[in-house]
């Protein structure tokens, strides 16, 4: 089924157009990396705040409101550039184990980012309201950071893992 998707993409007009420019892949990857920079920086800052605990509680809500929109904008940029890269070299991603692991991790991080965003929306002190929540905040921060690192690694490994 995935092979059929690859074939379909390889026969598409966009694929031919994108492939005809030698600079296309590195240029799109550069934009992709800039998107990664936005997500990694935003999530890292918020994760560290979550792990620091109640001392930063009120600052956290304000920080979240300020930073998280950038993470969402970056996610859109990453998805668009990602799709462009897949159209240009379909087999490289679609038939690659590292790519699918990365996609799973991205979905997880997205879910956690939604949690980060909406938890403090109506209740600025959401994460310091109870002991359990303080513990959860630390776990959320650590997990998000770990996911960021893993996604970057999985993304890099796409180039090294060829079999599906």
């Amino acid at each position, binding site marked *: 089924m995935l092979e059929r998707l690859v074939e379909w993409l390889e026969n598409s007009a966009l694929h031919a157009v994108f492939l005809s420019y030698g600079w296309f892949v*590195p240029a799109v990857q*550069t934009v992709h990396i800039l998107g990664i*920079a936005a997500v990694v*920086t935003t999530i890292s800052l918020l994760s560290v705040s979550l792990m620091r605990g109640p001392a930063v509680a009120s600052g956290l809500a304000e920080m979240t409101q*300020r930073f998280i929109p950038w993470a969402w904008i970056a996610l859109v940029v990453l998805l668009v550039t990602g799709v462009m890269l897949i159209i240009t070299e379909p087999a490289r991603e679609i038939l690659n184990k590292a790519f699918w692991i990365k996609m799973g991790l991205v979905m997880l991080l997205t879910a956690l980012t939604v949690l980060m965003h909406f938890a403090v929306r109506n209740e600025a002190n959401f994460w310091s309201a109870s002991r359990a929540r303080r513990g959860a905040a630390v776990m959320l921060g650590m997990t998000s950071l770990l996911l960021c690192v893993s996604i970057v690694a999985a993304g*890099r*490994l796409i180039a090294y893992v060829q079999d599906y």
Partner: protein
Amino acid sequence: MLSELANYVEQLPFAVAIAEGDWLFPILESIHVFAIALVVGSIAMIDFRLLGIGEGRQRVSELIARMLPWTWSAFGVALISGALMFCSRATAYVENPYLQFKLVALALAGVNMAAFHLVTARGMARWDVGMTPLAARCAGGISLSLWVSVVALGRWIGFV
């Protein structure tokens, strides 16, 4: 002379280990990508503030004080991981024009940063809140352009 030095470095045990190992190089690359993401991201936050992009309520001095530790620690990690990767294929990299230009761009970014901190930032107390002066906006714009170039040139290194 440079190629002799490159040759020598490339044959050191740690360099050989990186070049011949299956996972050492990709792991170094991943560390490098994560580190530069933090460098560029943290610097971009300051540049955006200087340029007046996004919410401008935070004091410039506070933003810089908060972001710079991230920038410097991440830069250190990027420098080390980059140097290790470089050593593993020094003779090839030394002749790579993209790497050469990337190092130039990095140096220029450093000069821009120094100029900002030594000159423009002197009067920061006057424009810490609200709109920034032209010199500060130029510094932000130049910084952003240089760092985007660093990322692009870095990506192109592997496409030779």
